[in-house]
């Protein structure tokens, strides 16, 4: 703690000078300040834990309602050992919604008042935390004032206040430079807001970048993109600064200009729609579809075997017709010798044949042991029980290229089988 006070004194002295003697010592001081601010943070954390532990006896729910260590310390100091919260005025310390919640919880709390000894210790700790906090503020102010000198490019993009905060949280310029841009974006991001309010309006994943001028002037719909852009460019600028690559700050200004232009471009309206003229009729051939569905559809209108038989005639044999004597529709080869039946079974479609083949190839069932119910009788939809398998005969007709006149399975019509 003593060291802190000393360094602070030295810092505020030099900040009164406002003038720089030489590069390095000043810079070293800034680096020290950054390290200091991180140390202060840690100290505050430790004290916060201490206060929490002590105050848990009195008011356990408070630590989950008020997250921020400094706010917690203030509230604890204000409440002290008081049981009735209506006598305590928390205005200005907390937002009114949180005050309300705190008051309500306090009325139903399971805590008991602290003994005198503990209370004093707690109040002391609170004081220390607050002192540390103010010290940190001073350090940051000092850093901020020198920011234009330390990191000109970074402050050209995000402004000196935010740059100082970023550096302070990161723990130094080189630490900031080593961070990836996504981390820089999140530096200083607040934790989830409680008290039962909706999180729909809470800005998500934005840290100190939120306080930059650029961010504040972008419309809300583009804010996330702007945040990412800013984080990326400021990381680059920080890297330039950490190596003292551009002490004049021109790179930073160039980046800022780039960012501004990009955000403007996002906001411009889309180009106007040009009405297209109609295409020349029949210039684009129709896209024919294929596939299983279409084939199944086509099967419904395909020429059946019965029709094929009716379309053909045997040489030399007059065909029968529906009205007799050559009048009416001709029956062709339907019902003539060699077939024996007027009815032609439907015949397995090509698709079903493929499916049946696949089915056979798959090793299905109980691996060899056939069901005791299989028989060589085939059940047809048309004629009931038939011994012969009608599927086997159905494809006898085949495609139109196979000639029935010269076919091997067809018979001579006049020669009787002996």
């Amino acid at each position, binding site marked *: 703690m003593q060291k802190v006070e000393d360094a602070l004194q030295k810092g505020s002295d030099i900040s009164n000078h406002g003038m720089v003697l030489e590069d390095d010592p000043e810079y070293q001081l800034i680096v020290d300040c950054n390290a200091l601010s991180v140390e202060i943070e840690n100290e505050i954390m430790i004290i916060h834990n201490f206060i929490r532990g002590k105050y848990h006896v009195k008011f356990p729910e408070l630590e989950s309602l008020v997250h921020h260590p400094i706010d917690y310390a203030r509230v604890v100091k204000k409440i002290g050992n008081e049981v009735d919260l209506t006598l305590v005025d928390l205005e200005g310390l907390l937002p009114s919604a949180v005050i309300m919640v705190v008051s309500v919880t306090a009325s139903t709390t399971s805590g008991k008042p602290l003994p005198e000894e503990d209370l004093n210790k707690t109040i002391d700790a609170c004081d220390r935390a607050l002192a540390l906090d103010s010290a940190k503020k001073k350090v940051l102010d000092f850093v901020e004032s020198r920011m234009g000198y330390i990191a000109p490019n970074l402050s050209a993009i995000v402004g000196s206040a935010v740059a100082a905060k970023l550096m302070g949280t990161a723990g130094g310029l080189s630490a900031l430079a080593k961070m990836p841009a996504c981390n820089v974006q999140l530096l200083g991001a607040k934790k989830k807001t409680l008290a039962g309010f909706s999180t729909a309006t809470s800005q998500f994943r934005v840290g100190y970048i939120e306080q930059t001028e650029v961010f504040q002037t972008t419309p809300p719909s583009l804010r996330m993109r702007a945040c990412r852009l800013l984080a990326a460019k400021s990381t680059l600028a920080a890297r330039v600064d950490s190596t003292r690559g551009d002490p004049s700050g021109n790179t930073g200004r160039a980046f800022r200009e780039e960012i501004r232009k990009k955000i403007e471009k996002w906001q411009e309206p889309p180009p106007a729609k040009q009405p297209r003229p109609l295409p*020349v009729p*029949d210039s684009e051939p129709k896209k024919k579809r294929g596939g299983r569905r279409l084939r199944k559809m086509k099967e419904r209108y395909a020429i059946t075997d019965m029709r094929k038989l009716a379309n053909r005639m045997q040489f030399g044999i007059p065909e029968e017709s529906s009205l007799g004597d050559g009048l009416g529709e001709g029956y062709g080869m339907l019902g003539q010798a060699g077939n024996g039946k007027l009815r032609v079974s439907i015949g397995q479609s090509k698709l079903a044949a493929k499916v049946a083949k696949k089915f056979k190839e798959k090793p299905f069932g109980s691996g060899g042991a056939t069901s005791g119910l299989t028989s060589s009788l085939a059940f047809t939809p048309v004629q009931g029980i038939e011994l012969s398998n009608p599927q086997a005969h159905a494809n006898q007709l085949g495609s139109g290229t196979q000639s029935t006149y010269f076919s091997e399975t067809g018979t001579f019509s006049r020669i009787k089988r002996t």
Partner: protein
Amino acid sequence: MTAMIHDLPSAWHVDQACMSEDERLVIIRFGKADDREVMAQDELLYKVADRVRNFAVIYICDNQKVPDFNQMYELYDKCTVMFFWRNKHMMCDFGTGNNNKLNFPINDKQELIDIVEVIYRGAKKGRGLVNSPKDYSTRYKY
């Protein structure tokens, strides 16, 4: 880019217009520009010109200034629209009895586009006469 409808000031221009296009239908509106019906029809033609410009081109001709075609095409109505393909005049059966020209007012932009498309298709195939997609026979009630 809006397609323009050009005016044909003389018979030579009309001939050239019909002969110049190889790939597009040539549509010529005959009529005096001051007339109310003609103006309404022109309005529609202007709207349609840009949409069909890939397969049709539209021209305007004042048949009182250019009287050469009045007897040939029997242009006795206030407003007539005629269709040409490769210097040959296209006929379309509208149901009105006169297949040679469109001498009644059309009010719907889409109908006009359909008629132009049908005539174009028929012309491309080599037909001299096509059927209009909509029947206009009850247009004139006797």
